[in-house]
């Protein structure tokens, strides 16, 4: 027979819909509307896991997201998710779950030996043990501890599901859909406000689903269904069940995880498993309810011992009892409610043990005045021992105990912006303080209003105040309004192993040890004992630990302090934070205008920032990338090559004072640059260090086009906007990025002019369009274009630009007309080789540490004007004769390679940092020279041309002899580019 612990009637489960599921390899049945926890309990499964440290048998403690014990690995294979609370895992047909934290089976866990060794494994044991011998730590102790530690295991496979992110806006966000949340929502919704109400449960109503109280003349759950139904039909309301608000962030933004597909076998195709919402709200009502407190007594962690409110939830909502014989241990009237409800369902109440001398009596069951001092049952509770007020001890046979130590308002979210809860003596609990996140109001049990009527009133009042409503059409139903009758009671004295934090195996004794050893602040207590850590964040344990520490130190609880909470409210899958930004979609891609053409021609692409650039174009028969790159370099220098340089930053600079502006931005002069001319420019940072280089082309008197390096396109634009807006706001200059507006190709090589003549409509002879000329032109019979005679390769070269939509067509046209010259497309590798051969600095040299002087461009800094960085570039320390200077390097033996990053050392002497002479920034193989070449920086480098040195890289065990040469390996006079 299955589900023997299920009542024959009642509850909110759908008895006509059965779900089969597997737990630890065994098949069970449950119903739609069950959680994994309630379904296991229905099947008389009390043992659901093992504890973290001592591997003690553990069962359910709660019925909600605060659960510390019943933590399982949900699903199997690549969808396996560790540390899932059985209490919130919605049951579905085919669910597979596995208990965790065990070696062997759940019943016979080999690591339960730890429990026998508990005297050696007390709080902070790892601070005192494993100290000797020291050599054992890394090889023996740490691997063993690491293997034993941790909660659950990962599948180590890629998650096959997807997660979405989303953004919502509302006037009022209501967190929690219990009585206060629903009262607030319906009040706000009827006013016409945009309302979002979110609840982590799949069934809205909060405690209304767990109680038997009537609201007017219907049950609480029926009232909740009625209100939720009305809310769902209102266009101004978004009702979000299965949605956990995980954090309160700045400026009225909240994070919320909506579980779209966690309750089905697997998500539908293209549907997310979860959505991480960012909710922007004007006001928030936190109606997160309260969490019942356990009581610490000897062996209070046996499966079957749980919160009394949880017993009530399982009975009333899920129609399940934890056992046929149940005892209650309470310090307040609420514990008696559980006894009444269970008794009414036919469960034998073995006894209600109440610590209060004025506890209510009952005709239906025995009420004992005393304390539970111990329990029995290896894998599940069988007996409880009660010490009565007269000192006698009575043994009670029971399979479950409900602990009721009072309630803690759920203040978690009120602390997310450093708010501190306040102590309420009457409730013996912390309630929300005054320093709440801006716009937040707290209502209902979360605010300490524990009666149903109080919660309803609090919710409605909060909505009225939040939205400044004059009136409301919603009349609150009548409901129970009981007062609190509680005697604070945290633990039973004299116990050796009374559990406070069941997730971290922290006992009352551990807290006492912490106090004894001087770790007395709550922060130290937490870190010394691990109290309040891990997945439940101490929701059921922090108060107990704090109360005991207060008692030990002779202070009140508020004087002792309280820990505050931080997001997320409950554990959140990393996948939800990642959303769609994973794998290929981790960041956006920028495709060049010739991307399609390059793909057709087998380009190998490289990521440059977000850009995908062709790195080289392999041809049939080429077996290594070097063969392709060498061919591209040689072909370009011999005839002509073409390269997509669209990625270089392009900034449109216009205005009557555009030239003056550039004069301030660049350290060299631009005021007198003639229209139709381009000039190389160097930008300095305020501190005089080189920032970026590029060109500025003067198309009109009041119109320049500035180019930047690909990597610095954004930083340079940002810098220029800063200068325009903040440093020189009165200058008439306007800036806008046009990087993507124009497709731009470098056409380089001795035949580049011949190729371009076939498509450019104007005269581009050397006389008409000399080196460094620029112009607006037309191509192919009328398409507007721009032409710049600039060269990065050192060859006769041009850069030609057309509106981006025509970029693909222009590439194809260039290749077509260039065919008779054997035109060769080249990628970034060949581009890099040619610029090193020419000695042009690039990102490797403009590395944020180098100055114009280092780069051999010191004389570019104009003394006739002020420009950004020019003053600080004159600092004495940046201008010593022994400064680094850019130089070229070639190997003494031509077959030797020159690794970038290697350092330069004198030909004799030690190889140490003190004797470092410089370093290599860029290196490549030059197919034109037939050996490796490199650029680098060398102390007093310009005076050391011809010197032989050692190139060393101790990490990669390189040591080779090189010669210092001019950085201009090819055409140092620049005859080719002026041809």
């Amino acid at each position, binding site marked *: 027979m299955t589900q023997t612990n299920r009542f024959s009637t009642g509850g909110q489960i759908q008895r006509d819909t059965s779900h089969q599921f597997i737990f630890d390899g065994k098949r069970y049945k449950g119903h739609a509307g069950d959680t994994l926890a309630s379904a296991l309990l229905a099947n008389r499964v009390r043992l659901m896991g093992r504890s973290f440290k001592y591997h003690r048998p553990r069962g359910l403690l709660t019925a909600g997201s605060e659960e510390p014990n019943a933590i399982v690995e949900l699903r199997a294979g690549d969808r396996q998710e560790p540390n899932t609370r059985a209490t919130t895992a919605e049951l579905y047909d085919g669910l597979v779950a596995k208990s965790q934290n065990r070696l062997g089976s759940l019943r016979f866990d080999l690591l339960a030996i730890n429990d026998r060794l508990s005297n050696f494994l007390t709080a902070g044991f790892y601070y005192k043990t494993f100290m000797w011998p020291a050599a054992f730590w890394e090889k023996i102790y740490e691997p063993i501890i690491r293997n034993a530690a941790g909660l659950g295991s990962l599948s180590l496979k890629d998650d096959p599901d997807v997660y979405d992110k989303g953004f919502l806006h509302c006037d009022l966000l209501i967190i929690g859909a219990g009585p206060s949340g629903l009262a607030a929502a319906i009040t706000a919704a009827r006013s016409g406000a945009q309302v979002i109400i979110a609840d982590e449960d799949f069934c809205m109503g909060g405690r209304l689903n767990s109680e038997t109280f009537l609201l007017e003349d219907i049950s609480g759950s029926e009232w909740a269904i009625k209100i939720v139904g009305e809310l769902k039909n209102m266009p101004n309301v978004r009702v979000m069940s299965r949605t956990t608000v995980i954090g309160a962030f700045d400026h009225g933004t909240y994070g919320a995880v909506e579980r779209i597909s966690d309750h089905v076998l697997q998500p539908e195709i293209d549907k997310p498993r979860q959505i991480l919402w960012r909710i922007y709200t004007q006001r928030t009502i936190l109606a997160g309810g309260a969490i019942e407190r356990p009581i610490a007594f000897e062996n209070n962690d046996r499966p079957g011992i749980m919160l009394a409110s949880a017993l009530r939830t399982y009975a009333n909502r899920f129609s399940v009892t934890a056992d046929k014989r149940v005892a209650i241990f309470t310090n307040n009237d609420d514990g008696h409610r559980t006894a009444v409800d269970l008794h009414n369902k036919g469960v034998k109440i073995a006894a209600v043990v109440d610590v209060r001398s004025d506890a209510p009596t009952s005709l239906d069951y025995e009420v004992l005045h005393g304390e539970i001092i111990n329990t029995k049952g290896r894998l599940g509770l069988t007996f409880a021992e009660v010490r009565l007020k007269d000192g006698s001890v009575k043994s009670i046979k029971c399979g479950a105990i409900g602990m009721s130590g009072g309630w803690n308002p759920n203040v978690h979210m009120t602390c997310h912006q450093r708010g501190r809860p306040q102590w309420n003596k009457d409730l013996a609990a912390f309630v929300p303080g005054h320093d709440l996140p801006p716009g937040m109001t707290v209502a209902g049990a979360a605010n300490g209003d524990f009666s149903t009527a109080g919660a309803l009133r609090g919710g409605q009042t909060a909505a009225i105040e939040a939205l400044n409503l004059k009136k409301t059409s919603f009349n609150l139903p009548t409901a129970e309004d009981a007062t609190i009758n509680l005697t604070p009671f945290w633990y039973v004295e004299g116990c050796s192993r009374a559990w406070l934090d069941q997730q971290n195996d922290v006992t009352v004794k551990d807290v006492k040890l912490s106090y004894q050893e001087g770790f007395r602040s709550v922060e130290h207590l937490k870190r010394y004992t691990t109290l309040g850590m891990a997945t439940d964040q101490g929701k059921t344990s922090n108060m107990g630990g704090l109360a005991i520490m207060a008692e030990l130190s002779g202070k009140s609880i508020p004087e002792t302090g309280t820990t505050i909470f931080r997001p997320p409210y409950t554990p959140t899958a990393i996948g939800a934070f990642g959303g769609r930004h994973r794998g290929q979609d981790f960041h956006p891609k920028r495709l060049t205008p010739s991307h399609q053409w390059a793909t057709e021609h087998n380009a190998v692409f490289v990521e440059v920032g977000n850009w995908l650039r062709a790195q080289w174009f392999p041809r049939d028969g080429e077996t290594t990338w070097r063969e392709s790159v060498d061919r591209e370099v040689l072909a370009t220098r011999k005839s002509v090559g073409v390269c997509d340089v669209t990625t270089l930053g392009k900034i449109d600079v216009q205005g009557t004072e555009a030239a003056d502006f550039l004069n301030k931005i660049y350290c060299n002069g631009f005021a007198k640059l003639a229209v139709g001319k381009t000039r190389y420019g160097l930008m300095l940072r305020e501190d005089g260090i080189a920032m970026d280089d590029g060109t500025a082309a003067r198309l009109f008197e009041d*119109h320049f086009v500035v180019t930047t390096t690909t990597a610095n396109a954004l930083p340079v634009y940002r810098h220029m906007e800063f200068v325009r807006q903040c440093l020189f706001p009165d200058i008439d200059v306007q800036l806008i990025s046009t990087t993507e507006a124009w497709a731009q190709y470098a056409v380089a090589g001795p035949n580049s002019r011949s190729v371009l003549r076939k498509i450019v409509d104007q005269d581009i002879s050397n006389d008409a369009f000399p080196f460094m000329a620029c112009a607006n032109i037309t191509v192919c019979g009328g398409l507007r274009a721009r032409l710049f005679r600039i060269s990065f390769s050192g060859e006769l070269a041009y850069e030609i630009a057309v509106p981006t939509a025509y970029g693909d067509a222009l590439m194809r046209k260039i290749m077509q007309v260039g065919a008779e010259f054997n035109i060769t497309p080249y990628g970034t590798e060949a581009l890099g080789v040619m610029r090193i051969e020419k000695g042009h600095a690039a990102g490797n040299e403009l590395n944020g540490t180098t100055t114009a002087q280092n780069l051999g461009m010191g004389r570019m800094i104009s003394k006739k004007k002020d420009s950004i960085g020019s003053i600080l570039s004159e600092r004495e320390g940046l201008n010593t004769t022994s400064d680094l200077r850019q130089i070229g390097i070639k190997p003494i033996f031509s077959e030797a390679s020159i690794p970038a990053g290697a350092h330069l050392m004198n030909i004799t002497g030690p190889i140490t940092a003190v004797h470092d002479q410089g370093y290599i920034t860029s290196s490549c193989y030059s197919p034109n020279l037939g050996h490796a070449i490199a650029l680098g920086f060398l102390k007093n480098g310009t005076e050391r041309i011809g010197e032989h040195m050692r190139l060393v890289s101790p990490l990669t065990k390189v040591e080779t002899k090189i010669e210092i040469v001019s950085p201009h390996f090819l055409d140092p006079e620049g005859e080719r580019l002026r041809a």
Partner: protein
Amino acid sequence: MHDLQPITALGGLETRIDKFERIIITENDDLALASVAARKGYENDCRDKIKKILGDIPKPGQATLDNTEVGFWISPDQWMIKAPKSTHELLANNLKSFFLNTASITEQSGAWVCFDLTGSGVSEVMERLCAAPIRKMEVGEARRTTIHQLSCFVLCLKYQTHIRIFGPRASAATLHHAFMIAAKSCA
């Protein structure tokens, strides 16, 4: 007349249209764009001319949509003007002639990709894409926001049923991919 064949931002000769039950994603290639930035001392003159073209001067967060040329505010004294490419291929040149020395004009046609999202599912899809308060946006509202890490302009053309998005052209494929997965997710 030149013989170069333009392609769309998604790389096709024709614009791409993707239809779902409640949303249609249309690549809008009929796009001539130019930015207009007022010159110092000519701000009022520039605004007068903006008004002549657009019928009104778009304020921050707004677009004017009534004329053939439409425009939206992009920064202080700076606007983006859009017209059909089929009739306004040389929009920037024409604007230069019109604004003369009152404004700096920059051709932006090639810098942007434009997508139209239409249908009853627009708001739901947009909520998965960006932080703009899409359900509150009235016709003529324009927002700068981030979609899949890309800075975009979002314009409301028809309340909750037609949104126009301008994004960086080089990332058109990424943007389109983001729209597609959001549309499928909401289908």
